[in-house]
């Protein structure tokens, strides 16, 4: 027993010593400036655990550090899941890095909140005007961020299956209409081969809902907010076109065309033949083509009346407003604008290269290539999510409304409540002036 007590005393001494040691081993930036110390600039990315994309970032940093002697960029990778929490916490402690990546739809919010500074990358090899519009983030007429790629949503299907049920394989010039799409789903359902012929990834959560389904609402003629001044959602978010979308969206579940909540890996389910048509991202195009070969049909979004629509904007690079060495940060942002990096990104991640010049160098995405049509979707059909600081809020309201609608809520009420909440939020925040 005495032995045990002595052990406890030992433990306490060790513990205290350990705490002291910990204080000594602490690393990181002290002091008041943020993101840069000496000539070292810190860069944050959301790519921890995603080595394909992370390697490209590393390569650009390595090239940049080797290309000049003034600046040294240091990488810090975060997991994507809660990247925003990391950034917000760092911002509240005034510890933002100089360079960081940001999901496109958040740019307006972060710029408004004073996290980001406008950038000037006019000296880069690739001019901004060469990029897909959705890959350059502007807020109040200033450029805040640019991305190397975009992604596009599309329908995947097997040609053989569509032919078997006499379903027309549409083209960009002549996409499916709503009636045609509904008829196709009815036909597939009737066959009994598929429990749920349509797979739209309804098991996802977060931004996916707004990204995947709000463009369909826009194709119906509705939208998330009245984009004229971004001052009200009432009459738009819950307008008759939006309600028409919601009613249709609900009918997919009530008709048994689509699962209320899809499985853990919708793409696997599609490849296994569980679903006939999958609404999914361009990032799975190469994988699907590998598995299905020529049988794979890449199908443009349905025209629900107001033209086919998909969401635009993915991850982009920006500079923090608290950066103590803005020249250095701009130098990196400018340096990175080389076609070869646009190419590297697209090749490594299976995303759509943001410029034509890069697309020509990526197998499959060059004009006439089997995936080039996806780039064309991004060019022709993409609608950026509302460019307002209120977007993160609007997005959560849309997600909730859409989920409630699938679970059986009355479409008009669900959207009406959402519109009311958004307008309340706009009002209490003074319409995000300032």
């Amino acid at each position, binding site marked *: 027993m005495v032995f045990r007590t002595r052990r406890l005393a030992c433990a306490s001494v060790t513990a205290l010593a350990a705490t002291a040691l910990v204080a000594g081993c602490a690393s990181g930036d002290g002091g008041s400036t943020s993101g840069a110390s000496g000539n070292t600039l810190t860069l944050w990315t959301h790519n921890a655990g995603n080595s394909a994309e992370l390697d490209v970032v590393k390569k650009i940093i390595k090239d940049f550090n080797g290309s000049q002697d003034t600046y040294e960029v240091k990488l810090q990778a975060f997991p994507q899941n809660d990247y925003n*929490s990391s950034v*917000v916490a760092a*911002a509240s402690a005034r510890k933002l890095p100089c360079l960081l990546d940001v999901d496109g739809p958040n740019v307006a*919010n*972060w710029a*408004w*909140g*004073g*996290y980001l500074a406008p950038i000037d990358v006019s000296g880069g090899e690739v001019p901004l005007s060469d990029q897909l519009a959705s890959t350059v983030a502007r807020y109040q007429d200033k450029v805040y961020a640019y991305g190397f790629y975009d992604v596009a949503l599309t329908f995947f299907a097997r040609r053989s299956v569509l032919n078997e049920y006499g379903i027309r394989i549409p083209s960009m010039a002549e996409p499916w209409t709503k009636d045609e799409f509904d008829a196709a789903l009815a036909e597939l359902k009737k066959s009994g081969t598929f429990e749920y012929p349509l797979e739209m990834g309804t098991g996802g*959560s977060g931004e996916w809902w707004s990204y995947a389904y709000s463009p369909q609402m826009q194709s119906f003629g509705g939208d998330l907010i009245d984009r004229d001044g971004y001052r009200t959602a009432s009459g738009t978010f819950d307008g008759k076109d939006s309600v028409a979308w919601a009613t249709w969206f609900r009918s997919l579940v009530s008709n048994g065309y689509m699962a*209320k*909540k899809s*499985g*853990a890996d919708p793409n696997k389910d599609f490849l296994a033949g569980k679903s006939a048509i999958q609404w999914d991202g361009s990032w799975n195009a190469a994988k699907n083509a590998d598995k299905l070969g020529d049988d794979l049909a890449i199908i443009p979004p349905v025209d629900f009346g107001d033209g086919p629509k998909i969401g635009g904007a993915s991850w982009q690079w920006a500079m923090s407003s608290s950066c103590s060495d803005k020249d250095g940060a701009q130098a990196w942002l400018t340096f990175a604008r080389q076609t070869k990096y646009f190419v590297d990104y697209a090749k490594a991640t299976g995303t759509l290269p943001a410029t034509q010049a890069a697309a020509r160098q990526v197998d499959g995405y060059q004009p006439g290539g089997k995936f080039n049509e996806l780039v064309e979707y991004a060019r022709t059909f993409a609608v950026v999510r509302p460019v307002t*600081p209120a977007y*993160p*809020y609007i997005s*959560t309201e849309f997600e909730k409304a859409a*989920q*409630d609608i699938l*679970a*059986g*809520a009355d479409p008009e009420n669900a959207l009406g409540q959402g519109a009311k909440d958004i307008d*309340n*939020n706009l009002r*209490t*925040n003074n319409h995000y002036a*300032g």
Partner: protein
Amino acid sequence: MTTMIAALGRLRTVRRTRTTHTRRRESLTALGMAAPAVVLLIVFLAVPVVLAFALAFTDARLISPTPARFVGLRNFTLLFQDPVFYKSLRNTAYFAAIVVPLQAGLALALALLVNAKVRGVIFFRTVYFLPVVTSMVVVSLLWTFLYRKDGLVNHVISTLTLGHVQGPDWLGDPRTAMPAIILMSVWQGVGFHMIIWLAGLQTIPAELYEAADLDGATRRHRFRHVTWPGLRATRTFVLVTITIAAFSLFTQIRVMTQGGPLDSTTTVVHQAVHTGYDQQQTAYAAAMSLIFFVLVLTVSLVQRFLTREKD
């Protein structure tokens, strides 16, 4: 820490003194011993909590270019008109009302089961404790699989009933989502409280049982007259901790249902985190937390009053 050492030093020099000195010595030592914990709790809990609650009376946002302004009770007025907040209160109460007795009772049963002096009992103790050491995030992910319409839970139900009963889409149906989460939460947490009961059982002197045996007491009698009274202190702890854990239900909801379907599983803490982080309404979330704090405090005071010891 330094106070304590000083107090100790003084302690040694003074030998036998009058009662007042002993009293003062006792108070000083006590203060010294309580000081590290109290100081840490003030710095890392009280201060940020007060800061958080102060936010409830402002228009603070998670991200904002302008500093927070005082807005009086505006957040509370909005809160009391918010139908989802009432739903979250109801869900939290529902969860707690089922989980507290279920988990406490089941944990006691398990503790009695593994307190027996039988070979292999340590093995069972460890197995029952398995879910506790598994992170709630991992557990929630696992059960999301198991609860699927074509998942294992339904497979087992169908097998046991020879195919007569087809299980529901547990997490997708507003009627079954909360019960499913209750079941999983008890499964995950019960092992921990089994250990607490076990620690309590072991403080009951063996002589009491021997005496009871000599009196020819039945097992029921032994439980009622020896075990149950012997667990008085443990009982309070188990009850209070399960209640508080039940009221703070969050992780499972965040991972498994995000409050859906149709708000059937949203809880106060989930709602606070959702509004505070996802929707960036820091002040509104703080108001929610403040109300929540007051409610839980009331409940625990009532609970403590009911389980108070009659000195």
